[in-house]
């Protein structure tokens, strides 16, 4: 029964079958039927059972990693040996099952990421069908999406299947699919990605000019701290301060004034203020994350699954 999750290859068990075999297809069919039956059961589930259902599933999912954390660890496990007692057997199972359990997260997250694209399609197809304002831009979006999907899969199929014997690391072997993918991905998408993010620099510039004012102690402290960090990260700022201090010290590294170079001042600010203050913020977030983790795992939140 434990094999249902911990499927360390190449083990053959009740839950696995040879590729293409009737047993495998039958198993897949039954699994999908069970899943669809579960969906139908949920569609007709009375409202007061919804919350307990979600809470149970969440708890069971979380229990695995809690068990992995608290269960005694088995050290020095050798291949082809049997566990020494029940505790070690469970420890080994927990270890073996971590990969497949993490795989479940990967797969479900991937399915849910597809939901983002699905929502985008829904909104823009709706706009197009209803000929709402700016529906032309929806056409652009849908066409771009379709083009990228077509080219992406075309390239993948070419490189991984139809022409997999070709060495595509040499550009002289490139074919239409590889050129098309390179143009839309590297030539257009990536450049737009970079442009989108870089635009913020202009807004920072404008905001710094218009809003970064010395109005309160807090604002002044923030401004001075930001300036010191920026100056210390600039080679020229460092060089200028070293030169200035060097005039006093005559190059003696153990001179008292050597403690007042920009990098030393920044070092002090970092060690005495920056690191501990960010660490304190982080501790605060950590306590919150831990509390939230517990609340979510035990479904202690009042909302969720009831409507």
């Amino acid at each position, binding site marked *: 029964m434990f094999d249902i999750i911990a499927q360390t290859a190449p083990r053959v068990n009740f839950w696995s079958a040879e590729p293409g075999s009737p047993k495998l297809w039958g198993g897949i069919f039954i699994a999908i039927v069970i899943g669809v039956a579960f969906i139908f059961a949920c569609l007709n589930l009375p409202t007061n059972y919804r919350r307990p259902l979600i809470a149970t599933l969440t708890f069971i999912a979380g229990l695995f990693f809690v068990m992995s954390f608290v269960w005694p660890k088995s050290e020095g496990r050798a291949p082809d040996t049997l566990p020494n007692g029940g505790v070690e057997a469970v420890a080994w199972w927990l270890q073996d099952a971590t990969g497949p359990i993490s*795989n479940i997260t990967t797969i479900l997250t991937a399915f849910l990421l597809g939901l983002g694209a699905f929502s985008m399609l829904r909104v823009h197809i709706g706009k197009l069908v209803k000929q709402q304002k700016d529906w032309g831009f929806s056409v652009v979006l849908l066409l771009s999406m379709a083009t990228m999907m077509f080219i992406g899969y075309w390239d993948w199929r070419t490189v991984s299947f139809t022409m997999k014997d070709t060495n595509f690391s040499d550009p002289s072997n490139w074919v239409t699919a590889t050129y098309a993918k390179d143009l839309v991905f590297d030539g257009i998408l990536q450049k737009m990605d970079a442009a989108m993010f870089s635009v913020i620099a202009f807004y920072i510039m404008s905001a710094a000019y218009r809003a970064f004012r010395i109005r309160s102690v807090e604002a002044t402290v923030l401004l001075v701290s930001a300036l010191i960090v920026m100056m210390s990260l600039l080679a020229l700022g460092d060089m200028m301060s070293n030169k200035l201090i060097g005039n006093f010290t005559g190059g003696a590294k153990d001179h008292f004034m050597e403690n007042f170079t920009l990098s030393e001042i920044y070092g002090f600010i970092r060690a005495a203020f920056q690191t501990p203050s960010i660490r304190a913020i982080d501790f605060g977030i950590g306590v919150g994350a831990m509390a939230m983790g517990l609340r979510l795992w035990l479904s202690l939140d009042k909302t969720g699954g009831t409507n």
Partner: protein
Amino acid sequence: MSEVVEPKSAETKSLGEKLLSIPKPALYLALILATAVPLFFPVPLPNEPKDTAKALFAAINEIPDESTVIIQSDWTESTRGESRGQMDILLRMLMRKNVKFAICSAADPQAPEVFRNLVFKLNAERKELKLREYKKWDDWVELGFYPSAEALGQAIAADIRGAFAGKRDAPPGGDDRPVFESPVLKDIVKVDDLSMYLVVTGTKSIIIAIERFSDKVKMGGMVTGVMGPETANYFYSGQLKGLSAGLKGVYDMCSLEEVAHPGTTKLKREEQYILSLHVAIFLLIAAVIVGNVGVFLTRRSKP
């Protein structure tokens, strides 16, 4: 009732008001000039690398030649200004030491292709320099994209073979096989067997990796400037063996590598970038000063 303020002409404006009324397009144009013009006049600037970058440089150099590391590549061209330089110098250092690497991504679906493109460019450059090509399968393999960084980290910590079970890769023009049959990963049984785990990221994914397995393997980080201060805490607590943050981090790593192994980096581009950064930062500081002086003068002139 709100006060209606008649727009003043340039002649009737006080100095304070003039300082406060620089139009937005002028600011934008100044920023474009500040960032673009220095690119045409690269001037090498003296540089004192930060202790975080020095530690990372030392940690990478301590990786035994021809051993295996995993690189988690979580950046796209949205952070190209910093992350491309980070990955570029990291790969050059690893290639110089013939270190094999396996690559995975856990933050952005575009990341694996961006990485492939960079290796492709580096290999083209190596070909021109008559250096050995860094071959897929023999020297590096791909481990794919994982939509959940948490799940990936947890699986790697528990059982690296289980985490990447089913992953396959192929040499150029060859048949695909399980990645653990490759020369890169054949000797890796648990995460401790890796010489180092390096994360190059434009996101917070490095923190997720740290909290999963920083106690099991030496970790190094290359992050964007935004993540620099927060990630530095993990360096000072010993969870990271080294850290390169932002463009300064790239410049530090390139400078250190150039001193140790002249001619192996693309330092010229980083010199152009860092000079532009100086000019842009000075422009920003000037803008903040002008804004504050403007406010001060305007307040003082009010009865």
